[in-house]
């Protein structure tokens, strides 16, 4: 019998990760799109690192950093009572970092492709940077926002290496679907592995299809 908890955990993780990413990526992408700061290339590189690094590298360093026996991990534990290794919170944190480029890059591209005069016109009409972003810029890059949300969500669902490194395989806490599939295959339960896989395949296909159809009709 297929357990639902890895599936539910997967979508919960993807949903929370996507929400957090959406909130932090908008100011970050806005800054990257328009800044003239000299540290921009450094920040851009850091944001893009998860694209090229093996997930295990990221997971490994996060594991080291958040381990309660090390400085940062101990500090988090003592001050906030926060344990990020082998916990759902740690999974969310790692997922946010791991999927960051998938949210930031589309939004940044969307913003920098808008005509400069949109921003300038809003400024000359006396509008603050914040009002300009919220009422002029973001409403005009809806497809880019949607792309960011879909890619981040999908990417988090497909995550394996980072999750395994920092979360391990604890049922109901960190055992997401991709880990469960690996686990079942290891245990030679191909039927179960297939059940999880098929479910993920169908659901993600359906989500992407709905989103792209909706996006197409809104653009047309």
């Amino acid at each position, binding site marked *: 019998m297929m357990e639902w908890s890895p599936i539910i955990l997967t979508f919960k993780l993807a949903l929370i990760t996507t929400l957090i990413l959406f909130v932090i990526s908008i100011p970050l992408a806005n800054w990257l799109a328009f800044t003239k700061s000299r540290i921009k290339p450094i920040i851009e590189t850091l944001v893009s690192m998860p694209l090229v690094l093996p997930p295990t590298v990221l997971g490994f360093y996060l594991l080291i950093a958040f381990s309660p026996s090390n400085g940062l991990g101990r500090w988090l534990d003592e001050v906030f009572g926060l344990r990020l290794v082998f916990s759902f919170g740690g999974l969310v944190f790692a997922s946010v970092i791991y999927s960051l480029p998938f949210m930031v890059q589309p939004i940044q591209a969307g913003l920098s492709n808008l005509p400069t*005069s949109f921003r*300038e016109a809003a400024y000359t009409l006396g*509008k603050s940077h914040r009002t300009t972003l919220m009422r*002029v810029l973001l409403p*005009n890059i809806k497809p880019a926002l949607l792309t960011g949300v879909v890619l981040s969500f999908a990417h988090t669902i497909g995550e394996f290496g980072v999750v395994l490194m920092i979360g391990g395989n604890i049922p109901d806490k960190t055992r997401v679907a991709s880990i469960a599939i690996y686990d079942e295959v290891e245990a030679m339960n191909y039927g179960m592995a297939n059940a999880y896989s098929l479910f993920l395949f169908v659901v993600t296909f359906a989500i992407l299809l709905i989103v792209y159809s909706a996006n197409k009709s809104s653009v047309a």
Partner: protein
Amino acid sequence: MLLDVRAGIELGEIVALYGTSGAGKTSTLRMLAGLMPPDSGHIQIGSETWFDSDKKINFAPQQRSISYMFQDYALFPNMTVRANLEFAQEKNIDNKRIDELIEAMQLGDLQHQFPTKLSGGQQQRVALARTLVRRADLLLLDEPLSALDQATRQHLQDYLSEIHRLYKPTIILVSHDIGEVFRLAHRVLMMKNGQVVRVGSPLKVFAEGNEKLKGRVIEVDEESGFVAVLIGNQVFRKQIVGQFLIGQEVTLNDFNVEIK
């Protein structure tokens, strides 16, 4: 290119920036608006200093009492025509003011449309209306009427004159249309390669130098002695002694009279 503009403008004056593309007209407007900081110099409006490179003063566009009409209109595609105008208002929406502008710009039927559905000329009228929503001290208009047909253009020239008569804003406009410059501007700054090469009344600026104001005679009434001359795309009539033929090209010196 080095842009070096030294000019004083009277408060409440209408000044036209005239010159070939790349002369620095738009850059001048952008510097006044705070969208492009000059390398050095200062910009002073009345008693207020908006920019001073020595004292490191540089007001943001939001701090300057300006209204800027962009050459590409910069209408917001996510807002209807009316919403674009409402967005330009400071805090409270003054429907009367917006209705008045919509009527003056002949946008009544289009006010609930989105800008991307409009023609170039219609978009230009929306952009001008949006610029006029704010009662700014300084109006910066980058080719405000260039995409309009002749009748609408004249109508809006009159409207701009009317606005100016009522509220006395200082207006700096870029125009390539000599007729329009004559109709609207008190003074012309003729620009070339980033410098102001000539300043003065339209008549003075266009009558002097190499760029003589050229027109074409389109009507001669021999009995009354009136000659109609098309300059740019405006018609001027003047009673003149002399022989003129229809189709003849004349310069302002031939005319030798004040047209305005």
